[in-house]
């Protein structure tokens, strides 16, 4: 229904709006010349100064035309390599003639968007970096953020948990981490003026004009309490105001290869069988095979056969056959063939931009379809439809309005496909490698799951449902879908009472609706298992409290956002030789979310009926004990409100010295009213010096641009958790025994809580030398995060262990260096863009609980575990003293002496651990090269990360014996005296000792440097200009992504950037047409 409503709104906008604002207007025409040569100058930017973002660009002869509603106009002309010029014109004067003087090169007529205003980069004192349309278009990707990897200088992507068979998503950070909350380190994402709510994948990257990253606190402080982690401002494409009608079409097709399952360092099936034979001979399975829990224990076919032989049920030859069959089989082959597929992603996008009188319009529509989500078989598809409509109206010289509507819909469907490896349960965590999934006729075979396969095969067959798991069949029995639609209207009114002063009011709405559900077909293992578990057998009578039929879990969630902003801004008010610009305003936002979930049983998808079940009673379970049938019921509502006031100003003195400042105050409903009173305004100041305008620098010919910038500022973080000056309670449902709703205290009264403060100093030099053939930027920053919300131990007699208080701190420093080379002018050009970043942070104050030594070793790499003086996410290890030459036991140190007391070593103080360093790179960046010859261009992108550490996996004998988790280091184990000289892998001992395993896994022998250089992308493209009269140009290109590692510091096989299988290669072809 929601969807219908949104479609209706779009239709309405289409029909009604373009007819507004057809007012009389004047077309100013003119021509721009080079003062030296007197020739017409092409590609000069012509900006209507009192016209917001109205631009025109001169044609090849220098001609231009701009529309205005009155007879008077102020125009500013800029072009790289020329001094800018501003002039006032009257329509009746006729043709405008402008001479531009080549001069100290002003390459910075780039406009950047802070999310509140567009400012010329020249005027900025803070740290802004921009990625433009062209760069975005050259990188394939479904989301804008994904595209920024490797092209946005200083944006760090931690993709360790990402991969074709892992569910993680990249952790994106700007200038390090500023909070202890692992999930809250991402920058604020702003789309067209307002913080974006929801999944950024809902935005079609083809509709993105540019992305500006705000790095230092002077840049971000305008965003106040939400900007402590940096800001990414995404600017959507707007109508082209130059007046020409433009149509663009782009299509791309990319293929993602199947994942490389053989990348995982497991041991071969034959060796696995040998281990099983060894364990059987040691009686390892004895008690499990004969025990009372044998029916719930999973055994491999080899072990089962050996036991059957012992019981006299089968002959030796049968066992030999089982073993022989197992030795040469690896189920990964079957998985690759029958469970995985190549994923195909198609993207098509059409855009039309047109101006009719005072009305300009841009419309775009896109469809993206990914077949084979997760590279899995089974009709897995994700489709995104997006429509974007922009209207810009000029009612009069002074009054303008914009209306934008963005609509997107994402449909996602997945099936019952499964990634490698299977987890059989029943005491094991990884399936034995020689499992057979498919028979000769291509039919799926059963594998053990949760229960002993033989038990599942025989237990009460005529009364219970088939209790066996057939993974191949399962693919078609589970249907998982979600649909999200989102409509965002943005309405802007601009009024210029006098030229340069503008009053602006913006309303932005956000209406998002998601429904999702999973239907387990009655044929699925999940349903059969659930039904059987609750089945009560009494003689030949059966009673099923959980009925046979599909199980359907479904939910809805919606989001409603309403945001309003008012501000006044003054653009370049002239005061003698100086210019003053300022903005002052306020905004209110209210974002509300609701959600509900539900689960029904015995569902029939055709009749749409379900069977009621008893959710209250504790039913006896077939396998023992009792259980209730979950209703999956849940409801929730969330409200986030924010009221903010902000302002900034910049003063340009003689075009050389720029002083800027900003301040912001926020209040929100997060901490309660009192917290808002304590909130200090966040502010920043900046200073910059355009040295190239100084006489003494002008004399040096080879310096074309030189600018110093210095800023100091504060931005904030909302911090985590919910606390308030009064006690906070958290409602939960279904108390034990009573089923009542109940409430727990989630935090005691917290009187002094305030928001986190991120303070940053930024020192920067921008330079351009040799006619800007070499340009670049060096920025150094220091940051100090204070009032960090962290647990503070309190008197436990109060009934609480900790309280969240503003007690912790982080310091950091870093460097961002970008360099662009464009040395040759000629038919063959070579351009290089390089970015080098250094970011380090360390904890200065922390009073919360310190995790145990062994936890730091095992989890430190992936989670924030603050320790004063160290990086937030760190790699630790136990000191390792090699292997015992007599028996291959690993040796560590305890009290300074070589020791085998593994349990004591792992309990020892954190102080005695090796601290290797951060788990996230200290240094990272990229080098892009573009070689161009006429229309043909070759682009390749090399990325690097360095200065960090990772822990490689290795063999754990306990896991090998008990849960079938294997590792190839097994082959390198100590087997005889002397081996200790060339291996660190301990000998196999039976029975396995988990402390010994854990010690070795956590020892320094398995810590490696993470430094890596990888070839991220190669692109070959060709641009054809004016191939026919209607087409302006055509771009065709081929792109290959994820080409792999060029160099790495570690000698192990693992790719340091990924903890599991690295992403597969993606090959993309694309076509762009501009009419």
């Amino acid at each position, binding site marked *: 229904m929601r969807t219908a409503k949104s479609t209706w709104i779009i239709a309405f906008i289409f029909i009604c709006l373009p007819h507004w604002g057809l007012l009389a207007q004047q077309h100013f025409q003119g021509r721009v010349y080079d003062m030296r040569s007197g020739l017409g100058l092409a590609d000069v930017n012509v900006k209507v100064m009192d016209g917001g973002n109205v631009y025109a660009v001169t044609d090849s002869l220098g001609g231009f035309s701009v529309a205005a509603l009155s007879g008077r106009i102020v125009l500013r002309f800029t072009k790289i390599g020329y001094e800018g010029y501003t002039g006032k014109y009257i329509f009746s004067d006729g043709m405008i003639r402008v001479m531009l003087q080549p001069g100290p090169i002003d390459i910075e007529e780039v406009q950047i968007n802070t999310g509140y205003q567009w400012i010329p980069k020249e005027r900025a004192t803070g740290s802004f970096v921009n990625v433009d349309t062209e760069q975005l278009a050259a990188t394939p990707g479904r989301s804008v953020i994904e595209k920024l990897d490797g092209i946005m200088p200083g944006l760090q992507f931690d993709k360790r948990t990402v991969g074709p068979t892992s569910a993680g998503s990249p952790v994106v950070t700007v200038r390090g981490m500023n909070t202890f909350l692992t999930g809250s380190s991402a920058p604020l994402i702003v789309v067209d003026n307002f913080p974006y709510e929801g999944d950024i994948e809902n935005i079609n990257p083809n509709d993105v004009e540019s992305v500006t990253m705000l790095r230092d606190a002077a840049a971000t402080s305008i965003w106040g309490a939400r900007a402590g982690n940096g800001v990414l401002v995404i600017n959507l494409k707007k109508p082209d105001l130059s007046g020409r009608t433009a149509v663009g079409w782009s299509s791309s097709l990319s293929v993602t290869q199947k994942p490389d399952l053989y990348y995982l360092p497991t041991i071969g099936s034959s060796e696995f069988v040998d281990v099983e034979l060894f364990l059987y001979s040691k009686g390892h399975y004895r008690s499990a095979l004969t025990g009372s829990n044998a029916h719930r224990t999973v055994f491999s076919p080899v072990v089962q056969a050996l036991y059957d032989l012992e019981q006299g049920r089968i002959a030796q030859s049968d066992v030999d056959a089982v073993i022989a069959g197992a030795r040469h089989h690896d189920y990964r082959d079957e998985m690759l063939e029958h469970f995985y597929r190549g994923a195909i992603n198609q993207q098509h996008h059409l855009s039309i931009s047109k101006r009719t009188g005072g009305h300009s319009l841009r419309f775009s529509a896109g469809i993206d379809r990914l077949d084979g989500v997760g590279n899995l078989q089974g009709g897995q598809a994700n489709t995104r439809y997006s429509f974007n409509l922009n209207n810009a109206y000029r009612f009069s010289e002074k009054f303008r309005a914009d209306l934008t509507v963005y609509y997107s819909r994402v449909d996602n469907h997945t099936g019952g496909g499964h990634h490698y490896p299977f987890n059989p349960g029943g005491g094991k965590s990884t399936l034995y490698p020689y499992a057979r999934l498919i028979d000769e006729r291509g039919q799926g075979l059963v594998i053990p799951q949760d229960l002993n396969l033989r038990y599942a095969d025989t237990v009460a067959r005529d009364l219970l449902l088939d209790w066996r798991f057939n993974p191949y069949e399962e693919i078609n029995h589970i249907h998982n879908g979600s649909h999200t639609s989102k409509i965002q209207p943005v309405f802007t009114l601009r009024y210029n*009472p*006098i030229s340069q*002063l503008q*009053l602006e009011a913006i309303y932005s709405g956000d209406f998002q609706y998601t429904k999702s559900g999973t239907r387990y077909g009655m044929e699925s293992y999940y349903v059969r298992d659930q039904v059987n578990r609750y089945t009560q057998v009494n003689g030949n009578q059966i009673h099923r409290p959980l009925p046979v039929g599909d199980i359907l879990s479904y939910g809805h969630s919606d989001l409603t956002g309403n945001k309003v902003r*008012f*501000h*006044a801004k003054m653009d370049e008010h002239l005061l003698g030789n100086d210019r003053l610009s300022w903005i*002052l*305003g*306020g905004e*209110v936002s*209210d974002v509300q979310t609701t959600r509900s979930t539900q689960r029904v049983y015995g569902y029939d998808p055709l009749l749409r009926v379900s069977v009621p079940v008893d959710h209250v009673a504790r039913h006896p379970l077939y396998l023992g004990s009792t259980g209730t049938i979950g209703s999956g019921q849940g*409801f*929730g*509502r*969330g*409200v*986030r*409100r924010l*009221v903010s*006031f902000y302002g900034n100003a910049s003063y340009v003195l003689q075009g050389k010295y720029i002083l800027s400042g900003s301040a912001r105050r926020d*209040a*929100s*409903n*997060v901490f*309660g*009213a009192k917290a*808002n009173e304590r909130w200090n305004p966040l502010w920043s100041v900046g200073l910059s010096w355009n040295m190239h305008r100084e006489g003494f620098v002008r004399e040096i010919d080879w310096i074309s641009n030189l600018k110093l910038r210095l800023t100091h500022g504060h931005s904030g973080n909302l911090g985590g958790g*919910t606390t308030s000056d*009064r*006690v*906070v*309670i*958290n*409602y*939960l449902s279904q*108390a*034990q*025994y*009573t089923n*009542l*709703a*109940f*409430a*727990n*205290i*989630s935090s*005691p*009264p917290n009187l002094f809580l305030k928001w986190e403060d991120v303070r940053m100093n930024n020192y920067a030099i921008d330079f351009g030398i040799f006619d800007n053939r070499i340009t670049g930027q060096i920025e150094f920053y220091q940051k100090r995060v204070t009032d960090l919300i962290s647990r503070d*131990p*309190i*008197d*436990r*007699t*109060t*009934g*609480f*262990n900790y*309280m969240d208080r503003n007690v912790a701190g982080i310091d950091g420093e870093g460097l961002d260096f970008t360099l662009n080379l464009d040395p040759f002018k000629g038919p063959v050009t070579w351009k290089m863009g390089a970015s080098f970043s250094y970011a380090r942070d360390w904890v200065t104050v922390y009073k919360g*609980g310190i995790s145990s030594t062994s936890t730091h070793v095992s989890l430190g790499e992936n989670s924030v575990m603050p320790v004063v003086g160290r990086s937030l996410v760190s790699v630790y290890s136990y000191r390792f003293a090699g292997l015992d030459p007599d028996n291959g036991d690993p040796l560590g140190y305890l009290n300074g002496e070589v020791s085998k007391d593994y349990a004591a070593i792992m309990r020892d103080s954190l102080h005695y651990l090796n601290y290797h360093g951060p788990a996230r790179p200290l240094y990272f960046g990229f080098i892009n090269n573009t070689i161009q010859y006429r229309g043909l261009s070759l682009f390749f992108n090399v990325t690097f990360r360095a200065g960090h550490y990772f822990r490689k996996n290795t063999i754990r004998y306990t896991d090998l014996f008990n849960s079938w988790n294997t590792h190839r280091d097994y082959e390198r184990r100590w087997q005889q005296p002397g081996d200790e000289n060339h291996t660190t892998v301990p000998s196999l001992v039976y029975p396995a000792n988990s402390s010994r395993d854990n010690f070795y896994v956590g020892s320094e022998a398995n810590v490696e440097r993470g430094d890596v250089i990888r070839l991220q992308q190669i692109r070959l493209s060709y641009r054809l200009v004016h191939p026919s009269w209607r087409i302006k140009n055509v771009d065709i290109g081929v792109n290959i992504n994820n080409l792999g590692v060029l160099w790495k510091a570690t000698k192990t096989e693992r790719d340091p950037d990924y903890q599991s299988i690295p992403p597969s290669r993606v090959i993309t072809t694309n076509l762009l047409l501009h009419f």
Partner: protein
Amino acid sequence: MRNNYVILLLIPMLLCFLGCEKFLSERPTSSVSNILSLQDMQAMMDAGNKINLGNYFGLLDVASDDFFVGKGGFDRLDDFHKSIYLWEEEPFYTLEHEPSAWTNPYHIIAIANNVLDELQEVEITKGLSRHTIEGTALFHRAFTYVNLVQAYCNAYDPATAMTDLGLPMRLSSDISLPSVRSSLAETYRIIEQDISRAIELLPMNSEFRTRPNKVAAHALMARLYLLMERYPEALEHASDGLSSYSTLLDFNRLDVSRPFPIQVMNEETIFFAFASGASILNPTRECYIDTILYGMYHEKDLRKQIFFKHENNGYYTFRGSYRGVSSINSFVGLTVSELRLIQAEALVRMGRLDESLQALNHLLLHRYEQGYFEPMTPDNQDILLNRVLEERRKELIFRGARWADLKRLNRDPRFAKTLYRRVPGSEEIHQLPPNDPRYVFLIPETVVEATGLEQNPR
């Protein structure tokens, strides 16, 4: 002129800022809130997971003489439980064990204090009264203090109570107040005051056995006075409670073939509560009933079958928890049987032998196989008292009562008893003489360090 525009723009913004306090007071998540109504308070006290379901001090039975542990079970224990079991002088509380011994019980008190402090501020919810809510909070606070006083303080002796160390009594939700140990007399005085107020406030009936009512408050008061050895008052409250509710489970009607014949929330339960778990009490980890104690049950005493399960090695494990499941958490709630036993003990100590016998016979009639129970006849006071105490031990096994009874009875030379514990798998014997300082648990060292609370002597 330019400034006028700015002012025009700022006026609505200022107006908005003045009006935004209400706008910003909306709760961020529907399930998260401040305490606003009596309903919220009721919900806080219905949170069994933080109150009566597994948060009381749970080591009282671990140190008692009702059971022993086999070697296999003992070897799997962590050092902390081993040291409690062997009555070591300074058991080392790890971070893992500290909460269940200190923070969790005090969290119950914090819940009660927050309710009591905000009680007058909140809105009335239909169907709930401030009286019930206040009585419930006072009951929970008192119940927890009664539990803690058995662990961290000496047995009550009116002669020394003014100088004996009591508990740190937290009676306000203000977490900035320092914790200081009160005298034992003060501790008991406050508990007594809380309970008597709760008796006034609580309704006669409650909808669930997890919510206290007037009977429960009388029963708690009877328990308190028994600890104080104030028998007439104990008798008064036990009788008051029993006059309102006196249903006993008839063990003849229980199904012995069920794995756990006693059902959860049975009609004998007045207030349902269990302490935090101790893995040492796990029947599947060789926690066996003391063989002498097992021998004390008469052949026709149904508790012998219903409470205990025969294991292959000839020992018996406990299956008679009022939780209705195999459990490592002692049931510490209030039952009619406990009230009968308090009544019987108080009467016999007051010399009212006939009435005492009547109470005891009434209980045992529900415990013995039908037709086999021969009501006892009055005897001399000492013999009857002995019998009452023996029945008390047999009935309240693994109910957290034994430890306080040992402490209380040790002060009487007639009942003083030295306990012995053999280190499983060795010949080493540990002793616990009567009135040993080790009868008082140490306060976790982390708490002592953080607060400067006075530690119990060793």
